[in-house]
């Protein structure tokens, strides 16, 4: 495991932007806290609860906790505190974040969720693997789709046929 490199001094603007964006985490936590509190307050507390702890008590505690932590985190960020992005073997923190790849991956994954119904698991699964591998930089036009297809079909066979965990087979089921 390599230790993450110390924050480089060369990009003060980027650092400031990052600090600003970290305030967004506080804002999100605050929003979540408000959401939890609103939900808790709309509960019907009267339903046969005994003692001081009803269905709304724990949500109220968690909601308040979220609000407090959101404020504390914002204060921390304003005083120069910084969350340390997670390092790792495959992670290069010096390079600028490549959000395009992330968005594409999210798209591929959502595509799987949408397509699994109409196209069946083997097709959607193969597209998921192929798409993800392509987005992540694999460029073997012949090998990639074949690996994806075999992996997906094998998985389908093991789950659906051998184990009896139902997975949709695709449009040709019952036609052939």
């Amino acid at each position, binding site marked *: 495991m390599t230790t993450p490199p110390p924050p480089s001094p060369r990009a003060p603007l980027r650092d400031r932007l990052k600090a600003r964006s970290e305030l967004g985490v506080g804002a999100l936590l605050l929003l979540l806290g408000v959401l939890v509190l609103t939900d808790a307050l709309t509960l019907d507390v009267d339903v046969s609860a005994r003692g001081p702890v009803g269905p709304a008590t724990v949500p109220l505690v968690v909601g308040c906790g979220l609000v407090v932590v959101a404020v504390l985190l914002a204060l921390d960020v304003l005083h120069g505190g910084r969350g340390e992005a997670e390092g790792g073997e495959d992670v290069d923190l010096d390079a600028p974040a490549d959000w395009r790849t992330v968005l594409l991956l999210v798209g591929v994954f959502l595509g799987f969720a949408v397509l699994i119904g109409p196209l069946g698991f083997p097709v959607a699964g193969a597209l998921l693997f192929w798409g993800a591998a392509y987005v992540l930089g694999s460029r073997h036009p012949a090998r990639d789709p074949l690996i994806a297809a075999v992996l997906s079909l094998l998985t389908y066979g093991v789950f659906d046929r051998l184990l009896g965990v139902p997975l949709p*087979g695709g449009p040709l089921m019952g036609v*052939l």
Partner: protein
Amino acid sequence: MRLRTPFALLGAALLVLVGPPLLTPGSGSDTGTDIPGLRFMVPNTPGGGYDITARTAAKNAEEAGLTGDIEVFNLPGAGGTVGLTRLVGERGDGRVAMSMGLGVVGAVHTNKTPRTLADTTPIARLTEEQDIVVVSEDSPYRTIQELLAAWRKDPGKLPVGGGSSPGGPDHLAPMLMAQAAGIPPKEVNYIPFDGGGELLASILGDKVAFGVSGVGEYLDQIRAGELRLLAVTGAERVPGLDAPTLREAGLDTEFTNWRGIVAPPGLTDAERERLVTLVTKLHDSPQWRESLKTHGWTDAFLPGEEFGAFLTEQNTRVDTVLKELGL
């Protein structure tokens, strides 16, 4: 290299499109009761009541040679209403059925779900089961009368344990008892547990004053003397069990839980008929008779439309009971 790509793509496409149907064995001759690819949905967790009913029925149907493999899968949640909603969503699918019972009727009311059992195609009622009132062997209550006397005095101090969430059978039974005993149901201190296991531990460990559960669940503990059976809730005594009915104990009420099978809405008459026939043949099979005996279930077979009428009647009863309870 260039040239191989289209072939690879074509090969991959063929694999994933044509592969699945080829992997699936031919559906074979479709005669009588065989429903290829039939699935039983269980709306609660493995090991629960509906689960055991579904798995036993599936196994018996396969053994009796009525149909091929029946796949049993669990979709637990919200007292069975998650499964119910999914089943209603499978509109027109004649190859799926759901094991259910009185608990689902109650859960529909307490969860106020938009999908109800009126949306399903009733197939058959299979079994019924009385509830029992049990205490641990160290409990101070030796008879149902002693228990009732203490309960009337201070209902809050006598927590009742049951294996179902509010609205379920183990909840309805003590509420009906309380009503008949002159205790305002709102004062009953009912504690729901996750199924029979945790409940049993709480009764054995005297965490609750008494427990209410299905008669089949704790037969062994009763026989071993670890649990004391105070009463059964049905109209008649249970053969082999030495306990009075509630009515004999002076409470003017009775309660019986039941289990059955429903299918999605929008089935053709043929599809519905096929499921009803399958379940009827299952009911007549020696394997099912044997299972009824080993599990201690009471046969309460009621097929098709009669079951539908029964569902409506139960729905009204649960509705009025829960309304009276202020739920």
